[in-house]
């Protein structure tokens, strides 16, 4: 005895002209999907509505400039259509789709959950919770809301499932720990747990005695110049540095992040650094070149401020870097940042 869920009909808000222009492409994608899985029972209207909602929300919503047909078609070409088709069918309660989903993905989900969770019991609890969410227990206006309806098809369904499982583990952890911040929570799950480290709290009397006015002047200038240099970078450069130094991603992990040839992050760095891979995977050495170029830019900005704002000579800049490096060893230089004493 099966419970047949009401068909999900996503709301649509999309410009009429764009709707008309994207219709043939969407119809072609639907035809292919339906030919592959005719038993999933997904109507063309439902499929089109989902894609139109995604275009409206994510593509049209990403910019104040009007979206062109070409952009829409490129966007549609990148959609993981088969995964989306299955998710819509599951959201609608189609038995065959659920069976396919379970057969194809349950084992994988269990492996991911076991990898992330501390115990087998936690892993199983997370899988059960995720399945319940995917099925949907909330009823709004007489329609059961399945978590599948939040999957847009922009990424693969397995990538999406990894994210869902990860979040579910965070929620499970949060449920067991009342007063832990979100940041602390995220740092106890997964491999990042072993890398999480906060800067040491400043000791009392932080202004650990400075030997001379020169050292004090150098330190103040260094903290200001490095902060401003970082702030002046482009967002992509900042993110690369944050991934490498704060999230402790290795070069091969960053290379994985930009593995997709269509990755906008990869495209941005290739244009900025005028490097271009032969295609295929980005090599670790390419990521290293991106980092080197970013360090060079930070150094340039850093020195510019020291010269223009603090009136340092080249010799003083060298001395400044030397002293700052010594200060790092003592753990003094940026100790006030964490507590907000220095911005």
């Amino acid at each position: 005895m099966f419970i047949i869920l009401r068909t999900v009909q996503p709301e649509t808000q999309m410009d009429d002209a764009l709707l008309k222009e994207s219709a043939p492409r969407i119809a072609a994608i639907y035809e292919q999907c339906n030919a592959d899985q005719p038993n999933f029972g997904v109507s063309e209207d439902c499929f089109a509505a989902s894609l139109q909602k995604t275009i409206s929300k994510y593509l049209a919503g990403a910019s104040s400039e009007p979206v062109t047909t070409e952009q829409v078609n490129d966007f549609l070409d990148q959609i993981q259509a088969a995964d989306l088709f299955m998710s819509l069918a599951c959201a609608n309660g189609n038995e065959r789709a659920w069976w396919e989903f379970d057969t194809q993905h349950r084992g994988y989900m269990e492996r991911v959950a076991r990898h992330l969770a501390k115990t087998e019991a936690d892993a199983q609890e997370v899988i059960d919770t995720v399945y319940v969410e995917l099925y949907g227990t909330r009823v709004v206006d007489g329609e059961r809301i399945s978590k599948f309806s939040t999957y847009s098809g922009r990424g693969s369904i397995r990538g999406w499932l990894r994210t869902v499982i990860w979040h579910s583990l965070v929620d499970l952890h949060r449920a067991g720990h009342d007063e832990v911040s979100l940041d602390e929570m995220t740092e106890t799950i997964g491999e990042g747990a072993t890398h999480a480290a906060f800067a040491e709290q400043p000791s009392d009397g932080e202004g650990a005695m400075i030997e001379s006015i020169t050292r004090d002047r150098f330190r103040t200038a260094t903290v200001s110049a490095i902060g401003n240099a970082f702030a002046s970078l482009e967002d992509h450069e900042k993110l690369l540095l944050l991934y490498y130094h704060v999230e402790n991603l290795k070069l091969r992990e960053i290379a994985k992040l930009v593995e997709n040839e269509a990755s906008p992050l990869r495209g941005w760095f290739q244009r900025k650094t005028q490097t271009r891979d032969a295609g295929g995977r980005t090599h670790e050495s390419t990521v290293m070149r991106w980092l080197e170029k970013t360090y060079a830019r930070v150094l340039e900005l850093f020195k510019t401020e020291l010269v223009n704002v603090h009136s340092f000579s080249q010799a003083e800049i060298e001395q400044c870097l030397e002293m700052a490096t010594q200060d790092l060893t003592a753990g003094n230089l940026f100790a006030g940042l964490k507590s907000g004493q220095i911005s």
Partner: protein
Amino acid sequence: MSNIEKMNPQETQLQGLLAEYLTSRKPSNASTGHLDQDTLAAFTEGNLTELEARSAVSHLVDCSFCRHITAELVRLELQFAEEPAPSRSQEAQPAKISEVLSGLLTKMFGTSENAVFAHEDKDKEVENEKKDEKED
């Protein structure tokens, strides 16, 4: 880093300073709310358009929570990179579907009978509401 010899001494010193500066900054959460799971997953796979990626990148610079999630997702993706891609089952639809959904419903409602009744009750409730509205 393996290329450390290739950087000039000042760049090497600066790298150390920068690393310390970045790790010493107070973690922040963006004031505009977090990226949804779908966007986080698509970003990690490099499937966002340039347009979408711009706002996602800006958010990730400011939001340590979302950024940390994407870093973990990249590690997860690498960990499971050798997994075979999902493939369609060649089996005919068996009675197993009943087991899959029954199992789910049992977990939610306790027993499969309760699940059926719970759903039927819900359906009746909705029907009754609609009838009431019409009469009004």
